[in-house]
Every structure is written in structure tokens, then in C-alpha cells.
């Protein structure tokens, strides 16, 4: 496929690995923020090819994984309301909340439908006008504009039974939160390519300036990632951390202005609850007052039981990059993709699922 196959050339990849080996003279700790990068690195075996000086840690960039139990419990509670149809991306179905999952709720009485797009959720709302249709709005800045677009479209068309449970989260503020925790001593960050397609590269500029940490926005093919690692190592070796874009065919410094405007029209910045990290100020989005009739949390009242965390699950530590999946006692034993205990094993982009599938132990 065009724009994909060219960036998978094995011979070129080998030469880039050699170049990185020549450049890298000191221990360098990088974090690939995005779950999509983790999967690509695992699938192509890049972690094993890089020189021992270059360490790659997986970050919290998996929206399903960072959704807190409290928010999953809300989605399940909404699903139990009479006549409600829940629409959600498929990844969310198996994620265990405090007491059950959406999948278990569907096995009961709840009407829960997997959709590929908010466009599909709108279609279900058009076809079922007497029933409330709620979209479970997880995702980062890549997905938030598509949720904003669906709300604007519902308003334009006068669709009155469409609602969103807004769980959108923002990447730069959580990077700041991780850096402030100071657990990792990072030298560089492989910044998320498709989040940056929307927000651009400028929102990362505080990272080299205030924390001295190098940033490169990366695409998702093996050559994209190797190029990004090469650029990060160059920045780090030269002692001049900055923000660069390796994924120039998709990412502009200013991002996608149309998408940013739509997001800003519908959402305002709010705190968000991140699994493993907690409530972080200004790291999420909520629906503006003007559009509050689309906000499922405003439109429906639900009662929630106290939040419970799964015993022994270390997803939180894994999401912060302080532990890896094989450190977990449950990994491959009590916790597998068929019977996940924590969300990092549920999502195909979760670190645990990626280690389960690709890591040679």
C-alpha cells in the first residue's frame, strides 16, 4: 500500500540500525508514548535490534488502557438504564470495571453495539428515534475531533436522542504529569504521530525547554520509528534537545486547524482520571455548556457503587513506564487476552497484550 510499503524496507532498516549504533555512545532512555508505536516496535522486533545503550519504555498512550475503573463503571451504569442503546469502539467491551464489563452487561439485558465510527453511532440514533443512543467517547486528540464533529452534525440535523459520555484525554498534559512524577529519568520521547496530526508539534515545546527532554513526532512504520530514534539519539548526543517531526508527510507544526477549531467549539479543557496516575488537572475534555444536552452525564442520573481495583494488577505501574508486563505476577497466568484482568491486556495496543503476542520470553 502506498505510504506504507516504502517505509518497511528491510535493507534500509538494517542500515539505519547500524547508524544508530554508531551514533549512540551513552545510555539513553526513550519512551514511546503511543500504544500504536509499542505494537509496531514489538511486531518488527526493533527493541532487540537497537544497541544496548538505547532503552525503549512503553508509555500511557493507549486510551482504553488509561480509562479509569470509575469511568468504565459509569458506562456500564448508563447501559443498565431502560431503553438506552450504548455505542462503543470494540476495544472497550472486555475492559473490566469495578464489578463487570460492558461485555458482561450485554450478556445481561443491556443493548450495547460496537461501532467503527461516531458516524455509525449517529446512524443508530437516526434509526431508533424513541431510544437514547449514547456513544462512549474515549480517545485522545486524534479521536476527539471526530466526536466533536458528530455532536455538531447531530445539532445540525436536529437529532435529539444522541449523547456522548465524554472521556476524551489530552497527551501533552499527561506527558508533563509523568515528567513531574520524576520516576523515569527520560532522555527522549517518541511523540504520537496521529495525535500530532491534529495538535501539531508545538504543544510539545515545553518538554525540551523545561525538562531538557528530546522530542520527535513519529510515524508508525518501522522506518518511521528508526528515523525518530536516530533523530532523538542525535539530539541527545549533541546535548541540544528540541522538538522535531520525523512524520512530515502527515504532521505539520500547527496541526489540523479545522479539527482544532471543531474541538474547541464543542469541548473545553477539564481534569481527567487516568488509570495508574489519578486525576490530572487540564488533561481531558468536557462538553461545553452550549452543547450540554448531548452530554450523557448531564442528561442521565446514575448511581455508582464504590470503585474497586483488581487485586494484583499492575497496569497502573506499566502505564507510567516504571514496570513492564513480565514484572506482573498475573501475566500469562491469571491474565491473558481471553481472560484479561487489566485493560493493558484487553486492548490490542496495550503493553501486556503486545508483550503476550510478540515478546520472546
Amino acid at each position, binding site marked *: 500500500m502506498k505510504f506504507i510499503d516504502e517505509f518497511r524496507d528491510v535493507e534500509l532498516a538494517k542500515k539505519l540500525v547500524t547508524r544508530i549504533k554508531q551514533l549512540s555512545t551513552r545510555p539513553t532512555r526513550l519512551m514511546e508514548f503511543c500504544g500504536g508505536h509499542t505494537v509496531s516496535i514489538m511486531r518488527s522486533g526493533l527493541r532487540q535490534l537497537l544497541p544496548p545503550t538505547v532503552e525503549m519504555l512503553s508509555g500511557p498512550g493507549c486510551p482504553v488502557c488509561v480509562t479509569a475503573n470509575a469511568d468504565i463503571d459509569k458506562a456500564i451504569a448508563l447501559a443498565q438504564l431502560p431503553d438506552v442503546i450504548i455505542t462503543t469502539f470494540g476495544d472497550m467491551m472486555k475492559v473490566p470495571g469495578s464489578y463487570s464489563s460492558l461485555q458482561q452487561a450485554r450478556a445481561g439485558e443491556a443493548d450495547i453495539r460496537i461501532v467503527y465510527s461516531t458516524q455509525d453511532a449517529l446512524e443508530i440514533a437516526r434509526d431508533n428515534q424513541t431510544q437514547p443512543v449514547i456513544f462512549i467517547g474515549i480517545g485522545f486528540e*486524534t479521536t476527539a475531533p471526530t466526536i466533536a464533529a458528530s455532536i455538531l*452534525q447531530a445539532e445540525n440535523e436536529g437529532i435529539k436522542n444522541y449523547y456522548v459520555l465524554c472521556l476524551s484525554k489530552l497527551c501533552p498534559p499527561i506527558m508533563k504529569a509523568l515528567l513531574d512524577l520524576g520516576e523515569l529519568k527520560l532522555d527522549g520521547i517518541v511523540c504520537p504521530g496521529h495525535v500530532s496530526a491534529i495538535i501539531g508539534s508545538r504543544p510539545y515545546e515545553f518538554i525540551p525547554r523545561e525538562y531538557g527532554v528530546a522530542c520527535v513526532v513519529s510515524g508508525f512504520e518501522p522506518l518511521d520509528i528508526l528515523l525518530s530514534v536516530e533523530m532523538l539519539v542525535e539530539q541527545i548526543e549533541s546535548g541540544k534537545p528540541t522538538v522535531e517531526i*520525523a512524520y512530515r*508527510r502527515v504532521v505539520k507544526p500547527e496541526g489540523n486547524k479545522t479539527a482544532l477549531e471543531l474541538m474547541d467549539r464543542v469541548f473545553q479543557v477539564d481534569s481527567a482520571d487516568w488509570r495508574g496516575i489519578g486525576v490530572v488537572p487540564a488533561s481531558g475534555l468536557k462538553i461545553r455548556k452550549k452543547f450540554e444536552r448531548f452530554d450523557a452525564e448531564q442528561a442521565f442520573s446514575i448511581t455508582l457503587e464504590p470503585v474497586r481495583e483488581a487485586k494484583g494488577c499492575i497496569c497502573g505501574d506499566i502505564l507510567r513506564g516504571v514496570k513492564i508486563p513480565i514484572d506482573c505476577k498475573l501475566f500469562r497466568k491469571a491474565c491473558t487476552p481471553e481472560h484479561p484482568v487489566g485493560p493493558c491486556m484487553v486492548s490490542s495496543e496495550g503493553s501486556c497484550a503486545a508483550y503476550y503476542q510478540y515478546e520472546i520470553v
Partner: protein
Amino acid sequence: MCLAVPVRVVSIEGNEAEVEIGGVRRRVSIMLTPEANVGDYVLLHTGYAINVINEAEAQETLKILEEMASLNEVH
């Protein structure tokens, strides 16, 4: 979750485009990329084109990769 794939725009009607990937066609929203034209490649994420792919930049990146790779051979 932020998965997105390059697809080619075949036709455009208002806020929607027909796109093609590997011989399969489907309708997608171009509300986020009103600048998209027929023949462009756009990046498709959950039914929305989220960006128009810049072909010249793709070629430039491949050139940089080739140059970097050839740097080893000099040493």
C-alpha cells in the same frame, strides 16, 4: 486506538468522500479535511479523514532515510 490508514479519495460530495483502499471503497466524512481533493491520499481514522497526506514530504523523508543509510557506507 489512534490507528489511521492512508486511503485515496475517489469522489467528493459535500462533507463526504468516497475513498479506496486495496480495492475496497467506502464513504467517509471529510468534515475535518475540507481541503481534500479527488486523487489526494488522506489519513482515515474511525470514518473521518483527519489529514491530507503530503506526497512531496513523503518523498523527502525517503530521501533522508536513503542518505542516512548511505552515511554508514562511507565510514
